[in-house]
């Protein structure tokens, strides 16, 4: 049915990097970025901003762009102290995003008219019937919104981190404070639910 799992996983990781012409060797880019090299910072931004934005827009659409800016500033602030590989950087980036998101929601809780609580995400979208239209030709954000709207919050977050952030199971486990086994169970249940919700739709991407 599919090829060796490691090869598939590697393809998944490369997929993200392949979108970024000129990223080159990640370690070199990171080293240059740490001392304020704008070319290197630009490469990092182009590499990760689209996925970061999709992640934030799926969870907090009204504030996503501002939150993304905050995340990058936080990255700049901590960049000199960061050490790790590309996967580690991605995990760090999305960990910051989750924290910024949580901060935003705490603030929003004091001003409830400004944002939707996370627990209402599924309800918000399900009211529009996530499987209402054919999946064919969906734009990236629309596809992500469909996924999120069909899942409860816990499953939605795990799937977002796996699909949008492109993080491996171990990294998601560390980020969310769960065991790898727990993440696998959650993602498995999410996929079963998605398969059931969208089973009747014709998909010809």
């Amino acid at each position, binding site marked *: *049915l599919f090829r060796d*799992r490691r090869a598939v996983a590697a393809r998944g990781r490369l997929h993200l990097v392949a979108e970024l012409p000129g990223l080159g060797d990640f370690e070199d880019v990171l080293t240059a970025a740490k*001392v304020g090299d704008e070319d290197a910072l630009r490469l990092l931004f182009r590499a990760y901003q689209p996925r970061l934005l999709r992640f934030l827009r799926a969870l907090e659409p009204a504030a996503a762009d501002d939150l993304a800016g905050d995340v990058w500033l936080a*990255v700049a602030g901590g*960049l*000199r102290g960061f050490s790790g590989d590309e996967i580690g950087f991605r995990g760090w980036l999305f960990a910051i995003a989750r924290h910024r998101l949580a901060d935003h929601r705490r603030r929003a809780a004091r001003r409830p008219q400004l944002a939707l609580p996370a627990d209402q995400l599924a309800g918000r979208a399900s009211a529009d019937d996530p499987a209402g239209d054919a999946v064919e030709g969906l734009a990236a954000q629309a*596809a992500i919104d469909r996924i999120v709207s069909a899942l409860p919050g816990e499953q939605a977050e795990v799937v977002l981190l796996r699909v949008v952030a492109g993080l491996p199971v171990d990294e998601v486990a560390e980020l969310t404070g769960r065991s790898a086994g727990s993440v696998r169970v959650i993602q498995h249940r999410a996929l079963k639910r998605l398969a059931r919700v969208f089973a009747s739709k014709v998909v010809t*991407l």
Partner: protein
Amino acid sequence: VSRDDDLPVDVHRFDLDDALLDGGLLPDDAPSASADVAALVQAAQAPPSPGELGGEDRIVAEMAAVLPDAAGVRDQGRTPLLARIARAKVATILAASVIGMGAAAAVATGDRPSRHARVIEAAGGSPTTVLEVTIATSEPAASATERTVEAAATNTMSAAARQTQTSAEPARGPDASGPAAFGLCTAWHNDRATGNKLNAPPFVNLAVAANSAGKSIAAYCDKVFAEHQKPPGPGNGQGNGNGNGQGNGNGNGQGNGKAKGHGNGQGNGRGNGG
């Protein structure tokens, strides 16, 4: 609790799950029940659209502003001539320090702890202990110069980092995280006192080493100095600085001024004229 949550988990499907979520499984290759999900994942991982990169210039500029001395780094790092001149300055400074080893200097400090400095020959990173001096520093002046020096050093590192993307030229200069660290820090402090800019490879290496340790150059050097000042053992409370008192002979560097509690620059200088 949903109906799905009650389903037993088929562990044999975990690999399929990973393939689906990683985007490595195309809809045509997926089982019919998962083809729709595979299509959704593929769509979710589509290449970026132009709208997703909005604000790039502003955010990159803000990031560069947060990172230390980014602006000065760029302008200087792209001028090879300046780098060559600075390199010559550093070589001159190091040479002058070695030539001046005949005097075991003791300089009274102000309200800031003094630093013992041992000049180490930078070339090759092999330590050649020739001199012990005590450097008195003034905090405000040091801070101002420090910023300038760090800017120059990190500037060159930025250029060097770019160079590594296009060539396989090995790094030059001593390894600032190794035995040469003390000598480089000494030279760095000496040059800081004169207000010169240091953007030569040895100081780039120093900046890299400091950055790797998550410290500023000053903090990194403080740590290096502190490590060299650790007492060799209890009961050894004095240090002897041997130098050439006549100024025209060979100085034998046998200094042992690392003991804790030793007064600043109060070693015993013994002439060894040749």
